[in-house]
């Protein structure tokens, strides 16, 4: 197909050589995202750039808002208007968004936030890599909620997990974070975009009852309420206050317990369907590396190099970091002598791994504080010291 014709397609089927940022944007478009609200920030700006160019070609809308606070509120509103919506940012922007990510959790609003991580805290390292926003994506907003956070490690996966992020958002009605990092955002490699018919698209459930009887927050058996779109005749209610099934504020412990328990349980009880990991050479492993994001590429390099030297190392790569795969890690702890956790922060996933192993094996974090990813040799050196 000619390049010109491809410009106006939602799904640009074919082989491309492109960056993680471009791939994530194409993934979002492929699954039907029609609204982007954002404020450009390094190292995520190419996502906004791609959406600004592509959305108008596809009948969608792009808004550059005055800041990240307006951006996140804008995409929540767009979602209630019935379109798949997203934003993209980096740590400083995500910090501004967390309050209204909480609003999205409470109003059960499907949308996607991409965070291309750079070094922090604060403005930190604008152009260089970090993985320091792990806990922020879990605990950033106040109150109890269970987020879904996905961590790609290749350009191909930036595309695929952008699709998956929208599908989780629509299926479970919540803001989902695609947590990338600068290395992935800016590196180029092959991206294969499949035929449009091969792309799984999940759409939010619509109400089946009549508009007069509709209760906007009455859940189905999977604990997720069907969602009406403003303008379709159904009552649409949104409030950050604790609300009953009608969507009316109802400020008492019983309603709070019922509602907040449900928005957590809709994820907790479906954890098995959500959690995804990649296992590499773990079958006979005596040592394991747990890794995620771009660093997992280095970790795989470590495994390959260690195996050549006869050291039995395997890799457990976290694709979803939230919900956290506690059970898988506890099982791994019974198998291996030690678990190594290389990450570009001062021990965020390491602490979760320590919690999950319940003392059954030793855990060692290998930390870089931002600006560069580990190389396979550095991680190998740590393992060789013990093997």
């Amino acid at each position, binding site marked *: 197909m000619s390049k010109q014709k491809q410009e106006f397609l939602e799904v640009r089927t074919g*082989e491309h050589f492109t960056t993680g940022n471009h791939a994530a944007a194409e993934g979002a478009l492929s699954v039907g995202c029609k609204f982007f609200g954002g404020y450009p920030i390094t*190292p995520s700006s190419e996502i906004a750039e791609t959406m600004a160019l592509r959305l108008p070609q596809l009948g969608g809308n792009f808004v550059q808002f005055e800041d990240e606070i307006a951006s996140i509120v804008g995409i929540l509103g767009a979602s209630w208007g019935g379109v798949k919506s997203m934003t993209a940012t980096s740590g400083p922007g995500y910090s501004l968004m967390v309050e209204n990510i909480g609003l999205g959790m409470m109003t059960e609003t499907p949308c996607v936030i991409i965070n291309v991580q750079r070094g922090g805290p604060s403005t930190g390292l604008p*152009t260089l890599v970090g993985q320091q926003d792990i806990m922020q994506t879990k605990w950033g907003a106040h109150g109890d909620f269970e987020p879904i956070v996905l961590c790609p490690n290749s350009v191909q996966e930036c595309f695929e997990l952008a699709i998956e992020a929208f599908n989780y958002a629509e299926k479970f009605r919540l803001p989902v974070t695609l947590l990338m990092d600068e290395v992935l955002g800016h*590196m*180029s*490699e092959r991206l294969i975009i499949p035929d449009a018919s091969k792309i799984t698209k999940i759409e939010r459930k619509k109400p089946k009852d009549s508009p007069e009887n509709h209760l906007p927050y009455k859940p189905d058996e999977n604990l997720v309420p069907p969602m009406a779109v403003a303008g379709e005749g159904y009552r649409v209610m949104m409030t950050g206050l604790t609300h009953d099934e009608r969507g009316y504020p109802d400020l008492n412990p019983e309603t709070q317990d019922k509602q907040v328990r449900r928005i957590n349980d809709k994820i907790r009880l479906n954890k098995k369907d959500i959690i995804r990991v990649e296992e590499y050479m773990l079958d006979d492993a005596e040592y394991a590396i747990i890794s995620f994001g771009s660093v997992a*590429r280095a970790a795989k390099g470590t495994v390959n190099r260690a195996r050549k030297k006869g050291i039995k190392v395997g890799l457990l790569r976290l694709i979803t970091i939230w919900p956290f795969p506690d059970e898988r890690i506890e099982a791994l702890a019974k198998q291996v002598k030690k678990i190594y956790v290389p990450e570009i922060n001062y021990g965020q996933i390491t602490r979760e791994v320590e919690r999950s192993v319940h003392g059954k094996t030793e855990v060692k974090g290998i930390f870089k504080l931002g600006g560069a990813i580990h*190389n*396979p040799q550095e991680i190998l050196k740590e393992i060789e010291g013990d093997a």
Partner: protein
Amino acid sequence: MSRVEIRFAGFGGQGIGLMGRLVGEAVSLLEEGKNSVMTQSYGPESRGGASSTDVVIEEGEIDYPKATELDYFVALSEEAYQKYIPKLKEGGILFVEEDLVTLDENAKKAKKIFKIPATKIAESLGSRLYANIAMLGFVCANTKGIFSEEAMITIMKEKIKARFVEKNLIAFQKGMEYKSDS
């Protein structure tokens, strides 16, 4: 073919990023069975500052996307040469823009050194902007089997703006044909 790491480096404005992108794209999309990853130095620099781009090429999956020990180092400025020559592995291969780089004892670890007056060649075609492509032709001719002439020509025709394609193809050809004197 096992893992090969190439770094192109010079100053902002020489088209260093384009060199990496063309090679990476040619390999990934046109060379059967090979993969490539391209990364670029990324910072607040602009025109005139140091610029570098790495391409890792391998048959099979590429685990670590960044360069660790350079098999090939292509230097188009003195600053870039000084900065990155320590990264060239013992027995690696060095390419230099001979009018812009002064070799010192660090170059001794290279198994082979290829020198080309890429900027002069480009100027003979009307603009020094073609120097990067002349250098690419030179690298292509002297690194047999890593990336092919045919793939590079196809990618250049696709990626370079139509009005510049012809001159760039000539620059590439001149680079291919140039014989280094050492």
